């Protein structure tokens, strides 16, 4: 074989060997254990921070509200639907004996009209005219712009919770 071909072939051979070595070094450890991916990625995805506690967790400390809610129309609503993610709250709330939580641990209280309207605002899609076979899911709707909007005497906007108990509407 002529000299220049030998050189060329060894040049390519070196490149190939370098590539193979690099490959050995660079492939992540758990790659290919379960499939063409890093098996560790599953456990890495599993260790992220949680925010929602789950409704069962609230009953421990707010039993009365739970019982109250269970008797009303909002029975099937989970606490966190209205109050937002509460895992931190459930973890740290009892650390404060006097019952005064710092602001960062207090949960949101949906007292604005528009927050009730998210579910109760009149909307054609909520009436389920065509599918009324399943009537237990019919949601009672009001027109948030009309329903008891203003106080008759003071002419001020009224909050829904003034007349409805959110936990037992």
């Amino acid at each position: 074989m002529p000299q220049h071909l030998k050189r060329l072939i060894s040049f390519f051979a070196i490149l190939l060997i370098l590539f193979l070595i690099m490959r050995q070094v660079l492939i992540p450890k758990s790659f290919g254990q379960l499939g063409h991916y890093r098996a560790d990625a599953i456990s890495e995805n599993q260790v992220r921070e949680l925010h929602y506690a789950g409704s069962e967790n609230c009953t421990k400390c707010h039993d009365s509200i739970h019982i109250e809610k269970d008797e009303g129309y909002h029975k099937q609503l989970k606490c966190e639907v209205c109050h937002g993610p509460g895992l931190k709250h459930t973890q740290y709330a009892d650390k404060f004996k006097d019952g005064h939580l710092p602001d960062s641990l207090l949960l949101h209280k949906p007292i604005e009209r528009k927050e009730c309207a998210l579910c109760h605002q009149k909307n054609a899609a909520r009436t389920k005219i065509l599918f009324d076979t399943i009537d237990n899911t019919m949601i009672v709707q009001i027109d948030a712009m009309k329903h008891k909007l203003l106080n008759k005497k003071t002419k001020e906007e009224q909050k829904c919770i003034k007349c409805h108990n959110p936990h037992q509407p």
Partner: protein
Amino acid sequence: MEPHLQNLYEVLSKVDGYVYPNEIELNWSILIVLYPYITGLVAGAFILASLERIFKLHILKPTYGLALLTAFSFMLVATMPLISHLGKPLRAYEIMITPHSSSAMAIFGFVYLWYLMVVLLLEIWFDYRCDMIIWANETKGFKRFLYRALSLWTTDISPKAVALDNKIGYIITVIGVPSAFLLHGYVGFIFGSIKANPWWSTVLMPVIFLFSAMVSGIALVMFIYIILNKIRKISVDMACLDTIAKYLFYILIIDFTLEGLDQIHRIYEAEESFEVLHMLVFGRLFFTLFIMQGLFGTVIPLITLAILQFYKPKVQIRKIIYFIIATLILIGIFFMRWNVVIGGQLFSKSFYGYTSFKIGLIGAEGYLMAAVWIIVPFLILTFLLWLLPPWKKKEDEIQVI
């Protein structure tokens, strides 16, 4: 607010109908338009070079070396737009070490490497090895070292070795032609295999990409050849240009037919997505599709080239016409890629609406970045022409085989 988000809010206000919220942002922008464009130029230029070598069209000789070097310099940057648009560019090596065999893009990495290292690099090496050894003896200093290193410090320039070089070069070209087809067909497949996107998902996509690649590559060589001779102040080989133009004409016809076929097929089948695509073509894509790609990029060059087959004006005029046509085609094919890549993302996969396209001048995905990746290959080409000038090669070699 970040400019990126600001852009998105502006796009949000321009959304027509309904698009999935995640679709408001166009994920592949100008850089991914460049990527098939540049790869196409490579494949096209190489096929032009191989016409000379395999089919022994010696009339194309003046552009042979130029076409090869053009292909090579564009090939070196072909993946750069792709890499620079990645969210994590530093992880790009993963494509090589853990390629996913069911992904068109992963296999592309290997097709690319094969084409760059085995086909282009080797062909040029065998082509120039002998010359580099001779030039090394004629020059001094760094350039001499460069030639030495590039020829891997070999010295054998006996006629036997040169004949062997030629023979291997020929074999590589023979391998190279299907490789060039593979390379660009594969780029087409990257788009054509996305079943979620009806604008892309067609079996003809690889073939269309291939032929438009040839068209653009040939036009590019023509363009560079005319400019280069202007700079070098020597007259253009008109017979060569006429032949190139002839091939350009034939391939343009095929390209046009294929794209027409694709559209006719779409229109006749009129699948679920037909309406949304129809509105897209006559709405947001009208200018780039009908005016830029259709009229300027295809119809005008086609008619002009057809006329030139029968009626040949004076050399000087013909040269200018060729130059203009080459430019028009280069622009036209750019917009063809644009219409595929951008067009395919302008409509929602829900088929209920359209988003719009907006990028800034600067930034990792802006126009400036795109301009860089268009200019760099020309700089590389200039360097290569300085280092390996095809016109200074010893003439007799290629005829040997």
